[in-house]
């Protein structure tokens, strides 16, 4: 295995639901050790893109490499945070138990989580500021707290590459702060994090790289190079001005879609 390999390489990825292309011919390289945001309008295929990389959705064509090898070989190096709305939070279980689920893959068949696993799960909850809620029934947590439980579940996976689907969706300011601090800490440790994001205003502040996606990859690369008004217009259609504060980061002069170098 090549230790200098990019965290993620996607080549010619195409996904279709009944003839309708959801993702079209996507190429993407994500260098290791960065925070990357994926932005695009609703229905642009952001969730599908992540789920295809994780083998949850079948691709019609294309190739995905994680640290230079296939996902099946590298599964244990990948952590995943699905959208919070994708599960029933009235399920009879508590926060600690949900976090423990992150270890089910490593535990193997028929083995129950023991003291070591509990310890790891508690530590992960502590990392996201949820230690005191370990025994709380999950329906009694606020949306932000539920999101942090999901993050803790990914943290116990102790991965090198994380995929997070809208972790900032509908969370309170405290949680948003906690998540961004966590993302930066992960980057310090050399982890790579790919985040589906919806708030264009915070992209320059939160992320090193960004991919603009709308069925096709409009642009991807360092935020200061590709997060341009022109590219945003190409991604979201004409009316993008109000999506972005003008005083944010000076707009680079590059008017053409930036191709990955």
């Amino acid at each position: 295995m090549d230790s200098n390999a990019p965290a993620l390489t996607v080549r010619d990825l195409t996904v279709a639901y009944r003839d309708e292309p959801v993702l079209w011919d996507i190429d993407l390289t994500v260098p290791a050790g960065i925070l990357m945001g994926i932005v695009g309008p609703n229905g642009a295929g952001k969730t599908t893109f992540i789920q295809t990389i994780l083998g949850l959705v079948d691709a019609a064509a294309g190739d995905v490499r994680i640290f230079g090898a296939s996902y099946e070989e590298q599964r244990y190096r990948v952590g995943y945070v699905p959208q919070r709305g994708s599960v029933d939070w009235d399920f009879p279980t508590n926060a600690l138990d949900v976090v423990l689920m992150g270890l089910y893959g490593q535990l193997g068949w028929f083995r129950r989580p023991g003291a070591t696993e509990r310890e790891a799960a508690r530590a992960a909850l502590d990392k996201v500021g949820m230690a005191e809620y370990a025994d709380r029934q999950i329906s009694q947590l606020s949306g932000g707290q539920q999101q942090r439980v999901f993050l803790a579940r990914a943290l116990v996976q102790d991965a090198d590459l994380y995929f997070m689907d809208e972790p900032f969706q509908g969370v309170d300011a405290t949680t948003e702060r906690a998540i961004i601090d966590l993302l930066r800490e992960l980057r310090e440790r050399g982890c790579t994090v790919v985040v589906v994001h919806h708030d264009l205003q915070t992209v320059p502040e939160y992320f090193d790289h960004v991919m603009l996606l709308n069925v096709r990859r409009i642009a991807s690369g360092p935020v200061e190079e590709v997060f341009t008004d022109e590219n945003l217009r190409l991604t979201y259609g004409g009316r993008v001005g109000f999506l972005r504060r003008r005083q944010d980061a000076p707009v680079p002069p590059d008017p053409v879609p930036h191709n990955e170098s």
Partner: protein
Amino acid sequence: MELLHDLLTNYTLRTVALGAATLGIVGGGLGSYAVLRGQSLLGDAISHAALPGIALAFLLTGSKDPAVLMLGAAGAGVVATLAILGVTETTRVKYDSALALMLSVFFGLGLVLLTYIQRHAGASQAGLDAFLFGQAAALVERDVIIMALLGGIALLAMVLCWKEFKLLAFDRTFGASLGLPMRALDIVLTTLLVIAIVIGLQTVGVVLMSAVIIAPAAAARQWTDRLGWMVGLAALFGALSGAGGAMVSASMANMPTGPTIVLCMGAVVTFSLLGAPNRGLLWQWWRDRRNARRLRRETVLVDLYALALKHGDMQYAHDESALDAMLAWSGGVHVALERLEDDGLVTRTNGHRWRLTDAGVQQAQALADDLHLSLR
């Protein structure tokens, strides 16, 4: 007492009660997963679909051996489940429509086959239609042993794959991202559900069997927030209603066993929906009332405080009707004031006028600060 004595001495009653308890345990335990996964109706479809399987098994073998008929029922249940999945995945028919479709088509086919059997297959045919509403009295020891054996295997499999099934029920996508074979787990769990249903058909019948899957689990969910407790409680409720229903129907003339068991389960569900702590309706009603009263007391206290501030005198006493007016005559002011008086926060001066005590002033100030009210 007499019933208990019968239970120990009467072979038939003991067999039926044991059989009903067994199907209750298995149905309750595995039904918990069906309920949590939103698959209650799948249980109904599987049990209805079992009817043609039973009829076909009889037509093919000429045997009325319960083991043979159960095998037929299970086969048809699995075929129906696959058909539902197939229709959902390959056409634009939605899941609930596919369920209803398979349920009625299989059940209709079952009725047609039953009629055919009654017309053509000699004298020994009678009795198959007992599978419609169940015929518990016909249970013999061997049937109960088969039920216990199959049910035991199903429950054992459930315990072995506990964490995998939990993940399947809670977050299937995440489970798949961990590399667990979620589709295979789904098939195994659904097969276990088929077993739980099939072993109850002879006793409860295809029409009512889904209640055994849904009711104990729905009741158990009311009492606990832990999956393990829920499954255990559902099994307990299933066992108690099963055995209880069997005994009630035995102690009265012309009480059909299957429906009586289902009625017992209905009673457990009703009681749980109303009376369970936290989730029960009575509990919620009481909590809402308590909260409303506390809120009313706090409002009255802050209102008194606001009035006192206006008059620049914390000792200033006000008429009750002034407070009533501030709350737009929405009621409850008098009760609130009396409770506040009990707590030593307000005090009565000459009849109907009220003023804050020192403790009341402090508390009202704290409340106003909490709410960021600017009263000055």
